[in-house]
């Protein structure tokens, strides 16, 4: 049943894509986010779905799209540079086999991210891309949100429809992405022209935002809670009545406490005892190892270079007595932990360890320059009239907030090459280029002024 459903949906998208080739681009975005191959039991596993949509998108763009508004920005250049750099680091990787395996999907993410802004040439296309990203991710978020509301979820327990632990099906990544989607949902609720604002749109958007907020609860991903806090602080800047907002947020936060599962509050409580939490202590040990490693290999060790790590550190067991936990050590005692081959658990250290200082520099340039450009657009358009490009300020705010949430979440999860993040970058580039064209049109003076000659 599920297989037939996906085949019918993808077939319909392909057919519609024949009439409007841009829909092939949206089809690829959908396949990249949802990975229907992971949700299908047997039918789609043998079909190269992403390849079909990617070829459709490229051929459609080459043959039918307007090329008058073609732009290639500095951030696309930076992504191209990162792609070339990754290629050479893979050639000289510490673990060539594992590095080649990761390179096989990373290059596709980067190539699509470079290509995507070339196709996003109109306001409607920007909106369509944002809507596709939201609806694609909502397929996982709605199911996870309902399950959380019904059963409470649990760390590594919440069923995200697929056994795959990659992309958005990894719980911490999903929590981070779900929170980063909230600014987009709020923006589109007011500004969408595909689904013009009405009570049904408001109801769906409200319910989806609630489901997004439930993901960190259901997955018990601590990263998600940090992302919610970051979003709360950023939204303070955008609201008209900040004191009312602070009061309402505090009230809602306190009111939700009795409804949160005990396992969730217990897990969030571990953030106060970094030394006692093995997961946090291991991360700190891996990060220390990475800094030492790039001291010797400043150009990085290629993909999956973490496999070479091994460390020994002392940690304290939790000082709190838990009657349900098995008694292995005395509460508050010091234990020695020996570990090896632990992943980076941070996009920053992932870039540093794998691509060295130059790779980290390029990656930071791609993200930070995007934040800066969005800030410029926000300041330029926020006081404009609706017909004079005010929507650009709204979308720039959403893109900036989403990117900051990703960058905060990325501090604790290895998502340096998350395709969703590169789609955000592509949308930023497209919006920036669109604003430049809009401004040019606005200030353009006619070369010839027609004179009206009286008869």
């Amino acid at each position, binding site marked *: 049943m*599920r297989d037939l459903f996906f085949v019918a949906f993808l077939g319909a*998208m392909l057919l519609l894509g024949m009439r*409007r080739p*841009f*829909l092939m681009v949206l089809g690829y975005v959908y396949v990249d986010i949802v990975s229907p191959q992971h949700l299908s039991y047997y039918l789609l596993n043998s079909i190269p779905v992403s390849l079909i949509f990617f070829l459709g998108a490229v051929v459609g763009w080459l043959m039918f799209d*307007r090329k008058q508004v073609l732009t290639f920005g500095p951030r696309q250049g930076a992504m191209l540079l990162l792609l070339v750099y990754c290629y050479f680091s893979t050639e000289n990787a510490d673990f060539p086999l594992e590095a080649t395996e990761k390179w096989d999907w990373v290059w596709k993410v980067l190539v699509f991210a470079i290509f995507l802004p070339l196709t996003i040439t109109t306001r*409607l296309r920007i909106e*369509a891309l944002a809507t596709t990203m939201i609806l694609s991710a909502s397929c996982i978020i709605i*199911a996870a949100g*309902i399950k959380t509301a019904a059963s409470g979820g649990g760390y590594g327990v919440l069923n995200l429809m697929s056994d795959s632990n990659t992309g958005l099906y990894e719980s911490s990544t999903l929590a981070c992405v779900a929170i980063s989607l909230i600014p987009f949902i709020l923006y589109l609720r007011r500004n969408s022209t595909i689904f013009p604002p009405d009570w049904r749109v408001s109801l769906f958007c409200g319910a989806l935002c609630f489901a997004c907020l439930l993901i960190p609860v259901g997955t018990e991903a601590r990263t998600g809670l940090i992302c919610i806090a970051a979003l709360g602080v950023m939204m303070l800047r955008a609201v008209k009545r900040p004191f009312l907002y602070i009061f309402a947020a505090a009230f809602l936060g306190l009111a939700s406490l009795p409804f949160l599962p005990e396992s969730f509050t217990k897990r969030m409580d571990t953030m106060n005892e970094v030394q006692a939490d093995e997961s946090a202590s291991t991360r700190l040990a891996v990060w220390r190892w990475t800094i030492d490693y790039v001291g010797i290999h400043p150009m990085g060790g290629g993909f999956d270079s973490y496999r070479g790590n091994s460390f020994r550190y002392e940690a304290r067991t939790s000082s709190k007595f838990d009657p349900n936990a098995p008694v292995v050590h005395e509460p508050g005692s010091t234990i020695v932990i020996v570990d090896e081959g632990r992943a980076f658990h941070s996009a920053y250290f992932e870039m540093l360890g794998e691509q060295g200082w130059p790779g980290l520099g390029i990656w930071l340039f791609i993200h930070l320059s995007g934040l800066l450009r969005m800030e410029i657009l926000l300041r330029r358009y926020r006081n404009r009239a609706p017909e004079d490009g005010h929507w650009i300020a709204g979308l720039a705010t959403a893109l900036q907030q989403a990117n900051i949430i990703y960058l905060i979440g990325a501090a604790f999860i290895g998502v340096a090459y998350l395709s969703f993040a590169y789609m955000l970058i592509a949308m930023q580039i497209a919006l920036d280029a669109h604003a430049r064209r809009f401004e040019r049109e606005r200030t353009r003076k006619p070369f010839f002024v027609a004179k009206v000659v009286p008869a």
Partner: protein
Amino acid sequence: MIDMLSLFLSHGLLLLMAWRLLSRGDLDDDKGPVDTRKQHNKWGAPDA
């Protein structure tokens, strides 16, 4: 059951979006008509 509900809702909306985009002239050009269906009369012939 929950999974299927989520799949139907999200994919239904994706298809509805794609369907609506088919008739949007401003998909390829900002200056294009917002709805190309309005350029045709009820018999499908272009308006004069």
